[in-house]
């Protein structure tokens, strides 16, 4: 698999310098190539980050597609609704996140504090949408476990529930009845604590654009994109499996786990293949979808013995 191995310490400390430099160049080369291919950023504030583990060496999807083709139904159900409406409507400051539930040190975190909670890393992850398209995104963030550890989950904490902002004054899409607002998503605690799971503040070297879930979101690269909740206002540790919004809306189509799985079809379409945004042109073949979106080596053990057709 095209993923750099994880490391408990910074890769430059354990890897021979020439090898590390070559790897870093490889990763940076992908970014540079994407930039050269017309993926100009829009001059949002820069967000400094060191290269993190687990990055794919696949070519990042051009910036204009990552930020121009978005599912963020709070701003409308068309792909160009969020980029059109979110920058004008969504206010990013002040912003705080309530972290509570089955924790000993639950409290409200200000966004500025969260930005400094742990060192920011750049991680180039594949993103697979449940609709059958995919992208490669250079996210910036740190493992969600950094935050969860600090609030000290109790023994009762088994799951994590994420809640997205739901303010009708800022989000015109809330008038639609497509799901029950606010948008809620959830992970098992071990999934949330997995080193791949990112609390994300930026992409392409800049702070998150409004339409991509600013000012902070989660990124869970082995699950369909809808699991990676955007514009978070609450992270709650709970004992029982939370009911995520899409499962509530269409339980026969969307489950709790939503692991990327080419062998388990969506109720209305096959999940065996996908189209890469901006790369797979009109006459390109669809590419095969990878089990766990290619992160099986890292996460398959989380689901050992589970029937993934039942727990879809």
């Amino acid at each position, binding site marked *: 698999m095209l993923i750099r191995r994880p490391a408990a310490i910074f890769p430059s400390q354990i890897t021979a310098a020439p090898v590390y430099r070559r790897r870093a160049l490889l990763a940076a080369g992908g970014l540079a190539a994407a930039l050269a291919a*017309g993926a100009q950023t829009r001059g949002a504030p820069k967000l400094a980050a060191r290269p993190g583990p687990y990055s794919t060496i696949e070519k990042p*999807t051009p910036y*204009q*597609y990552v930020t*121009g*083709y978005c599912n963020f*139904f709070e701003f409308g*159900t068309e*792909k160009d609704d969020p980029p059109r409406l979110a920058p004008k409507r969504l206010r990013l400051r002040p912003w705080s996140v309530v972290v509570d539930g089955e924790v000993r040190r639950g409290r409200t975190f200000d966004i500025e504090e969260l930005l400094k909670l742990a060192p920011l890393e750049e991680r180039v992850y594949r993103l697979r949408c449940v609709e059958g*398209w995919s992208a490669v995104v250079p996210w910036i963030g740190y493992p969600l476990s950094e935050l969860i550890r600090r609030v000290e989950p109790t023994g009762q904490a088994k799951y994590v529930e994420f809640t997205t902002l739901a303010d009708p004054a800022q989000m015109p899409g809330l008038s*639609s*009845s*497509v*799901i029950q607002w606010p948008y809620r998503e959830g992970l098992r605690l071990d999934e949330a604590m997995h080193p791949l799971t990112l609390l994300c503040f930026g992409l392409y070297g800049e702070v998150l654009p409004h339409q991509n879930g600013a000012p902070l979101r989660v990124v869970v690269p082995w699950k369909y994109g809808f699991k990676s909740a955007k514009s978070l206002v609450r992270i709650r540790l709970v004992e029982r499996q939370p009911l995520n919004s899409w499962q509530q809306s*269409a339980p026969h*189509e969307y489950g709790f786990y939503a692991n990327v799985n080419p062998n388990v*079809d969506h109720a*209305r*379409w*096959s999940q*065996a293949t996908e*189209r890469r*945004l*901006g790369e*797979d*042109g*009109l*006459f390109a*073949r*669809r590419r095969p979808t990878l089990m766990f979106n290619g992160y099986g080596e890292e996460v398959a053990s989380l689901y050992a013995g589970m029937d993934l057709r039942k727990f879809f």
Partner: protein
Amino acid sequence: MAGRGAAPAPLFAVLPAVLPAALFARVRAALFALALLPLARLVVLGAGPGLGANPVEFVTRSLGTWALVMLCVTLAVTPLRHLTGWAWLARLRRMAGLFCFFYASLHVAAYAVVDLRLDLHAIVSDIVKRPFITAGFAAFVLLVPLAATSNSAMVRRLGARNWQRLHRFVYPIAALAILHFWWHKAGKNDFGEPAVYALIVAVLLGARLLRWLAAR
């Protein structure tokens, strides 16, 4: 223009009920060119990066939308003729219907050939498992005999009565096309656009129903 004191001219008297042959040929040529614009637009966009992040999706959806538009245009011809008295409209209906078939065929080709590369297993399982594709596929299958019998020779061969019976299939086709669009949007509960087309089709079919009831 009507002179002083005369009754106001009927609204639709701007054009006569019968057009001179030369003018009719020009009107038809202009409408033919107009109906090709949606395809020309896709070709121009496709020459650059204009088809966006997901070109296959863009092209497929655009072609489907225009097939539906042409279907509405076709269904509008007869009520419009009754409303305006422009008898020459009837002679444009075949062209409109064939443009509907043209865009529907390209729509199906974009899905089956360009997107799925004629992967028959994938296509068949889509038709069986995805109700919105079942509806769209049925609409297209029903459209084929109408396109095949569209020329004057076929009208003669079938006889006007049989031909008309066969071509009444355009009504279930319209219903299936709306259903196809409606179910496609059902995943997002976003029925604004299909509702507009459903309303247009309902008005066009309703006009026929009213006329039929009035004639009884």
